[in-house]
């Protein structure tokens, strides 16, 4: 016979206004198994919690129902209180008579009756509750950071500086990400490389950061605290241990005219190259698609020239394994492919702007390289077609952003700011030049941001037109830009020397495959999903995996860095303990009745169920069965609903409990 205590809360007026709490407490006191029933104005307050503790002790309660708000709000509070009084916390249930009752009803009599029913359900649940113990999981006290852009760098340094080992995986030959290629940054116009490269060096030299550059995450196994990561180190054809980064190889390489990825094809690089002089690690890679030695066993000048004997044309991809406890995903973004072949059919591009057709129509990252001191033109703005300094430049914002018809519905957030910056940088470089900006709205929320845009307009004379550009054509080397100024209500035609398109931000290539490997969610555009948009912004729904930077949503540098530090602090919380504690409300498989159909294995969204065999103590085979990995299971209950033999059940939410609850209403 159970001894259940019911604690009905008024929540000040929130519940008591609509629900007759005295009557409720009286009615539920006669429910089967109920030992005592009280009500109080604020059950979550100190005296309220003391009431719960005292009753547990005085009435020797073996179950508690708190009828108050949502369990999201105070379940933890009351479980702690019960635990303090010596009751297993998983014998405490909440009956939500606020959100589910008093807040949504007006009729006092009906609401009171409903509150009684809600409590009746919870009493049945508690009657069928069993004491559970939290799951303890050992922790590998290391973190993996995927992506070596500014967000990844920040997260890795924060975690490593806190004393934990970090494994960083970067797909490109060097860390630095998009920020390494930017010229200057808004709203302060400080040089991007000057602030980033010292941080890159810190990563490269940090005793607790193990950097895998030119590498990708191949496979992810395990669960929170115990991930096993397989990393593919792509064949670099250069032994990074022997290489001194002297540069003889890339100077001697005869194949110098390959479009540079780092310069977004605005400049060239040799077949053996480092992406930029400040690269970390400062070790070259060979582009196997163009190297004559790798294609037809020719040339090999670099090998002859290398005193360190670091060139290895026989290099192959290597798979290495790393064990980590947590993962930070910081894979960043790419720009929307304007008018090129799209990876999604619904992105039909902006053919009217002639990107890819007219050399002098470029995107914003290409412009960054053209005005960067370290860029292909050494910071002198020269247009791609003929190297002339453009005297009139048109910037078009929202190319692909906020466009349901042929792009993406979301705002890319940073374009208003960098377009103002571009207009400014242009004026600083070409004093007699004129910048024209077409915009839809100017979104400049942020510290010093709107002032920055005003500066571009008022001090640097950028001409802003609120309206879209309909078409760009090329006549006699000039780009004829036809657009609308919707504030003045006139059509505008500008003969420009250069057009810069502020293309939308999209998550980096391969994000969906990576998210699938990590078992984390992503939205229809490929941006990774946070666990809660307000309260858990850097967590994912998979325990132990965090997100930072533009892989989550369009973001500028300050925001990416802030989010990276937030993710790093979450990682540190997790790594600070030897063991992780997880809620025990997860699935369990009855090995006796399991028919080994493994439907659950195939449907589990977290890959938390594995195939196993039951054997006798002497090792003789008994039967095959499914088994839940308590580190991975998130307690969603999918396996319970698909199991044909009813062998899967959710601890703390068993089928028996649910049926008992339903029957109590009959």
């Amino acid at each position, binding site marked *: 016979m159970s001894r259940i205590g019911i604690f009905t809360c008024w929540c000040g007026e929130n519940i008591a206004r609509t629900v007759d709490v005295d009557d409720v407490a009286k009615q539920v006191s006669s429910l089967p198994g109920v030992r005592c029933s009280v009500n109080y104005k604020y059950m979550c307050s100190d005296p309220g919690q003391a009431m719960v503790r005292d009753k547990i002790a005085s009435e020797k309660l073996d179950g508690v129902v708190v009828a108050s708000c949502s369990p999201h709000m105070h379940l933890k509070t009351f479980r702690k209180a019960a635990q303090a009084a010596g009751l297993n916390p998983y014998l405490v249930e909440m009956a939500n008579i606020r959100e589910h009752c008093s807040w949504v009803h007006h009729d006092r009599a009906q609401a009171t009756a409903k509150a009684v029913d809600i409590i009746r359900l919870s009493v049945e649940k508690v009657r069928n509750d069993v004491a559970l113990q939290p799951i303890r999981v050992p922790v590998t006290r290391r973190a993996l950071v995927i992506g070596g852009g500014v967000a990844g760098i920040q997260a890795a340094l924060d975690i490593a500086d806190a004393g934990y080992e970090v494994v960083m995986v970067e797909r490109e030959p060097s860390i630095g990400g998009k920020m390494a290629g930017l010229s200057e940054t808004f709203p302060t116009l400080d040089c991007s490389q000057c602030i980033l490269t010292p941080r890159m060096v810190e990563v490269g030299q940090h005793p607790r950061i193990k950097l895998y550059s030119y590498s990708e995450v191949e496979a992810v196994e395990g669960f929170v605290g115990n991930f096993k990561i397989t990393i593919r180190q792509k064949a670099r054809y250069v032994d990074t241990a022997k290489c001194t980064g002297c540069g003889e190889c890339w100077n001697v390489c005869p194949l110098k005219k390959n479009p540079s990825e780092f310069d977004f094809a605005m400049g060239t690089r040799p077949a053996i190259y480092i992406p930029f002089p400040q690269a970390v690690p400062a070790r070259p890679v060979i582009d196997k698609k163009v190297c004559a030695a790798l294609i037809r066993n020719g040339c090999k000048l670099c090998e002859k020239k290398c005193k360190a004997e670091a060139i290895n044309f026989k290099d192959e991809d290597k798979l290495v394994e790393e064990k980590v406890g947590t993962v930070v995903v910081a894979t960043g973004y790419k720009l929307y492919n304007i*008018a090129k072949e799209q990876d999604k059919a619904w992105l039909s*591009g*902006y*053919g009217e702007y*002639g990107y890819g*057709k007219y050399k002098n129509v470029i995107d914003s990252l290409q412009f960054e390289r053209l005005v960067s001191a370290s860029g292909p033109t050494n910071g002198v703005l020269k247009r791609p077609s003929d190297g002339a300094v453009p005297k009139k430049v048109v910037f078009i914002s929202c190319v692909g952003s906020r466009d349901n018809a042929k792009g993406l519905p979301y705002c890319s957030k940073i374009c208003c700011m960098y377009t103002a910056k571009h207009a400014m940088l242009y004026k600083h470089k070409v004093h007699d030049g004129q910048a024209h900006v077409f915009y839809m709205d100017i979104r400049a929320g942020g510290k010093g941001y709107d002032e920055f845009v005003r500066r571009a307009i008022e001090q640097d004379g950028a001409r802003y037109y609120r309206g879209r550009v309909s*078409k760009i054509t*090329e*006549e006699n080397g000039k780009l*004829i830009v036809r657009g609308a100024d919707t504030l003045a209500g006139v059509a505008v035609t500008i003969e420009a020397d250069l057009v810069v398109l502020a293309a939308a931000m999209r998550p980096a290539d391969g994000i969906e495959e990576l998210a699938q490997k990590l078992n984390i969610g992503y939205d229809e555009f490929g941006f990774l999903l946070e666990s809660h948009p307000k309260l858990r912004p850097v967590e994912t729904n998979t325990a132990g995996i965090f997100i930072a930077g533009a892989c989550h949503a369009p973001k500028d540098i300050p925001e990416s860095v802030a989010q990276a530090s937030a993710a790093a602090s979450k990682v540190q919380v997790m790594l600070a303990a030897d063991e992780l504690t997880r809620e025990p409300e997860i699935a369990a498989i009855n090995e006796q009745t399991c028919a080994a159909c493994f439907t659950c294995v195939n449907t589990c969204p977290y890959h938390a169920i594995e195939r196993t065999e039951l054997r006798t103590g002497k090792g003789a085979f008994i039967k095959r069965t499914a088994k839940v990995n308590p580190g991975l299971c998130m307690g969603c209950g999918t396996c319970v609903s698909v199991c044909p033999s009813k062998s899967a059940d959710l601890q703390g939410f068993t089928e028996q409990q649910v049926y008992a609850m339903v029957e109590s209403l009959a």
Partner: protein
Amino acid sequence: MNIGYYPGCALHGSSNDYEQSLRACLDVLDVQLQEVKDWICCGATAAHALNHKLSLALPARNLALAERDGLKQLFAPCPLCSMQLLKVQKAMAGNGLRAELSQIVEADLRGDGQILNLIQIFQTVGLDKLKAAVKEPLKSVTAACYYGCLLTRPPEVVHFDDFEQPKSMEAVLAAMGAKTVEWSYKTECCGAGMTMANEETVLDLAHKILSNAAAHGANCVVVACPMCHVNLDMKQAAVERRYDEKLGMAVYYLSDLVGLALGLSAEQLGINRHFVTKA
């Protein structure tokens, strides 16, 4: 090959040179055109300005007739006609209009037929087959392919080629041995029916189109639309007068040039009936 044929009003009236051209040309290619019996006007620009449902019902009736005649493919040489037919197909697929339109036109509409424009007819024949049939390669032709508004637009209705930088007409002409130019007015509007209401607008647009084609080195403009031909060819003399500029730009239907390459004469194709004759 037997293909359904919806000529539309223009091809039986002001632009019957277009019909002469494409019939002659397709005859050589062994494409038989089976004209839809009792076809009616597609509604053109007039119907949708009056009544949305009417603008759907008119092409729906033509679709129903084509379906009655068992035509799986329907060739509409006027891009406005083909767009209207595609528009009604889309409207039927998307929402519950199929039942209502079926009731209006008193037929069980399926809306599953394939609607083809002139370029698609040549694509259906096959560019390889076209190339093999060439008797007189168009060595002296440097064409500016002019798509106008409706061959590629609205893209969500017609789903044809890249709607801002199309290339399909160039591909047909390349198979015929002609050169083509990249120019700026490929998909601009010619003014279309404005030619009746506001001639100046049309003259201005036609002037821009024709002189841009010339500036990019074209010796002719190629169209696949009766209205474009009217505004660029018939109105060219008026353009020349208004801008006091000799243009002399030949304007061909795509089928004219294909026909010439296949060995037909200008008279067989009706090119001699154009207003601008090549100097």
